[in-house]
């Protein structure tokens, strides 16, 4: 007769991913590569923001982009065409987030060396926040039409982000968006978060974001 036994495990499902992510972060530090995990809702302007920012930075450093989506390669193509930087598409196969292992595979698939790698995560304010990708820093874009109350509704996303970009500020008057209140809500979830209001369309605030990236790239290389 088969021997049946109970094996006690008591292990969190996130434990392995957290360890993989810490390892990846340490390796990137060793190589002097700054990896930014960029998250947001669909349609918040991630790709447009990236194009503007990359065009401002690309002469000063080597940049690569990894676009994570459930399907299609429209974003990777768009980035490559608009900026000329190396861009690859990662498919999550229906999954709503990337984990550290998938990020590692993506990095291995890059064909060029880079000082700055930007991972554009799946458009979603819930799941990507729960899985550490191993990125050096996390950034999220909240766009004005989504409303200033989002930090209250998606607390985890805002608490894991080092930088919050508030995009589409040119349409603020049409959406009754309260920027000060929004900042207050973000800082409530994460007192250490840096907040930069931007408008990817007009270019407002993009230089400040580019400067933040550049400082971090230097820091990752131990230059400052």
């Amino acid at each position: 007769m088969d021997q049946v036994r109970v094996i006690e495990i008591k292990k969190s499902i996130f434990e392995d991913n957290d360890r993989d992510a810490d390892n990846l972060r340490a390796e990137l530090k060793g190589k002097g590569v700054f990896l930014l995990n960029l998250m947001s809702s669909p349609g918040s302007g991630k790709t447009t923001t990236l194009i503007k920012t990359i065009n401002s930075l690309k002469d000063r450093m080597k940049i690569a982009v990894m676009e994570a989506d459930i399907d299609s390669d429209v974003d990777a193509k768009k980035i490559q065409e608009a900026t000329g930087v190396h861009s690859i598409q990662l498919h999550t196969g229906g999954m709503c987030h990337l984990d550290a292992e998938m990020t590692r595979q993506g990095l291995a698939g890059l064909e060029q060396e880079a000082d700055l790698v930007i991972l554009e995560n799946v458009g979603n304010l819930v799941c990507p926040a729960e899985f550490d990708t191993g990125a050096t820093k996390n950034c999220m874009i909240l766009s004005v039409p989504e409303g200033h109350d989002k930090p209250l509704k998606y607390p985890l996303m805002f608490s894991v982000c080092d930088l919050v970009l508030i995009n589409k500020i040119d349409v603020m008057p049409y959406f009754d968006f309260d920027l000060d209140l929004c900042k207050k809500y973000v800082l409530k979830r994460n007192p250490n978060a840096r907040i930069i209001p931007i408008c990817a369309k007009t270019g407002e605030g993009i230089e400040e974001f580019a400067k933040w990236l550049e400082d971090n790239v230097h820091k990752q290389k131990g230059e400052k």
Partner: protein
Amino acid sequence: MHELGIAFHCIKEVNKIAQENNVAKINSVTIQLGEVSTVIPEYFEDVWNWAVKKETILKDAKVKIEIIKAVTFCEDCKREYPTVQFGKICPNCGSDNTYLVTGNEFVIKEIEAVDQ
């Protein structure tokens, strides 16, 4: 589909444990799930049953889910209260200076295994 990603992680982990323990077959996997873990138990069970069909050791494994109550602690009045009912605002003193004590867990508690 958040539950599917979690189910894949869980299956990967259990497969690893099964190999380390020389297990031939797994009858069941017991999961402890926090009330505010963002995983919906019924959905998780559905995607689990779908995902294990592609497996070998785990092919017939049932998932058993134990719920962990969500409890929040208030820093101002130093009391605990049920999170699901009251959210982030303390029902005792009205403070929002609170944090979650338990309730966001997703733990693989144990597996019932058949030896080789």
